[in-house]
């Protein structure tokens, strides 16, 4: 009797293992949380230093067009050209990619059948896996000359950036939309066909309608990717921090100014802090994209 009691009150090997496992995962989660929080803290404090330590105006930052943080005696930190550049390439590439992604996804799920999907799926996945520097390189050797000959200008500019980003976000949007199309219940298709609807009517009026939340989520994910892409865009956009007057003259984005400028500034000075402010804008925007997808995901069914 006592032996049983002793065994029951003693911690078994299994329960100790259990505890150890919990401890390890807790430690990992804490570490990740710490990393995320310190990144957030660093970017925010450094990014805000421009305005609080260096006394630059926040309003000027968002509205002025001249970016010259090392100018003497009065430094100029107008980030409007970069913000406009970033938003233009993002929105334009998403607008361009959306119809292609919709058509490809519908073809893969509802038209091509199993064999077609087997061929297309790896193709799409391969496109996701190509490093961005390769896209940039191709953009530089193919897209820039193409834009120069067809649309004029130097070839460097928002249009070239849009084309490169279009190819980069297309597979992301497509594969996400494929997943949400697959989640549209089969019985929607059956119900529609049994009412004498054609395949086109079924796709257009039933399947796409039912998958709109998924489509929006996919497009916003693509936009988040386009907004944050640095290397490939930097290689083709021309890197002139002036407000672009058209799509074929050199421009810049938040990311391209960051990558070109970060090595040439000294930590703690205004030129460096100003770059952190750009990073803060990027961070906030990706937060917004994230919240948007959550919000839509919560509302939508598929």
């Amino acid at each position, binding site marked *: 009797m006592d032996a049983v009691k002793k065994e029951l009150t003693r911690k078994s090997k299994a329960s100790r293992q259990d505890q150890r496992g919990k401890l390890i995962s807790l430690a990992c989660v804490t570490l990740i949380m710490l990393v995320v929080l310190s990144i957030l803290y660093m970017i925010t404090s450094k990014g805000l230093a421009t305005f609080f330590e260096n006394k630059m105006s926040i309003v000027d930052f968002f509205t002025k067009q001249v970016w010259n943080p090392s100018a003497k005696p009065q430094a100029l930190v107008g980030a409007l050209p970069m913000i406009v550049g970033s938003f233009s390439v993002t929105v334009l590439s998403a607008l361009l990619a959306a119809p292609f992604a919709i058509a490809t996804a519908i073809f893969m799920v509802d038209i091509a059948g199993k064999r077609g999907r087997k061929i297309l799926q790896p193709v799409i996945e391969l496109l996701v896996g190509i490093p961005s520097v390769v896209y940039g390189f191709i953009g530089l050797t193919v897209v820039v000359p193409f834009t120069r000959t067809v649309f004029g200008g130097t070839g460097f500019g928002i249009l070239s950036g849009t084309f490169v980003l279009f190819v980069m976000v297309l597979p992301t949007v497509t594969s996400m939309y494929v997943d949400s199309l697959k989640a549209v219940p089969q019985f*929607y298709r059956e*119900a529609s*066909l049994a*009412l*004498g*609807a*054609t395949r086109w009517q079924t796709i257009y009026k*039933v399947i796409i309608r039912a998958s709109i939340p998924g489509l929006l989520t996919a497009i916003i994910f693509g936009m988040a990717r386009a907004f944050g892409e640095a290397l490939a865009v930097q290689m083709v956009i021309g890197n002139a921090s002036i407000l672009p007057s058209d799509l074929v003259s050199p421009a810049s984005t938040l990311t391209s100014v960051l990558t070109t400028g970060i090595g040439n500034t000294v930590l703690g000075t205004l030129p460096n802090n100003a770059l952190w402010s750009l990073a803060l804008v990027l961070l906030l925007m990706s937060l917004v994209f994230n919240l948007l997808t959550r919000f839509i995901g919560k509302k939508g*069914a598929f």
Partner: protein
Amino acid sequence: MLETKRKEKSILTFPADREIALETNNLQVYYGDNHAMQDASLQFPRYSITALIGASGSGKSTYLRSLNRMNDGIARVDGEIMYRGLDVNADEVDIYQMRRRIGMVFQRPNPFAKSIYNNISFPLREMGIKDKSKIDGIVESSLKQAALWDEVKDDLKRSALALSGGQQQRLCIARSLAMSPDILLMDEPASALDPISTHKLEMTLNDLKEQYTIIIVTHSMEQASRLSDYTAFMHMGKIVEFDTTENIFTNPAVKLTEDYVSGNFG
């Protein structure tokens, strides 16, 4: 008493003056190499309810889904399905027009994620009916025929997904009726419903048979005997017996049928 029933197969045929809504002759359905339905020859008299009974996997649903070509692309169908003197599988038959004439209601209620009104008006608009008052009229009359009108007439803009399962199923029936079909194919329409909803559904079907020909697959033998005029018993991809419901349940000609309807199966 010695067993006297030695028939293997017994299929009722109708005299020439009985109007036949739909008829299959030697229908074969194959899923790849699997011969899922063999030599199915049946006649469905107009303005009647025919029940298809049999164990799971006996081919009832396969047979039913072939009748309005919902098996296209899934299974290979040979043999004739005669509807108004035309073979529905013939090239000259427009599949979309045919499906409006031969409607289908599925096992699981499958309303679209739209309002009650739009669930019915949507296919009408797709057909090209533009006149709002005409659409309103069809929505009302088909909801009335499906015995749903009184329950939903106050709020037709409500989402169809907010209805109960039984109401959703009657909405799906109303949606099919709005196409003004000749024939309604029903694949276990009551299997996802509770007894009260099932009862309402059966009353609805009973009223509908005055204007429509109904072919219903059911797992419930009580339902088949209560509801149908004719019953076909299927087993292992073959039609074993087809007769009036009364004969099937009280005096079946084939031993297998008797075992099945009396519950001594297998």
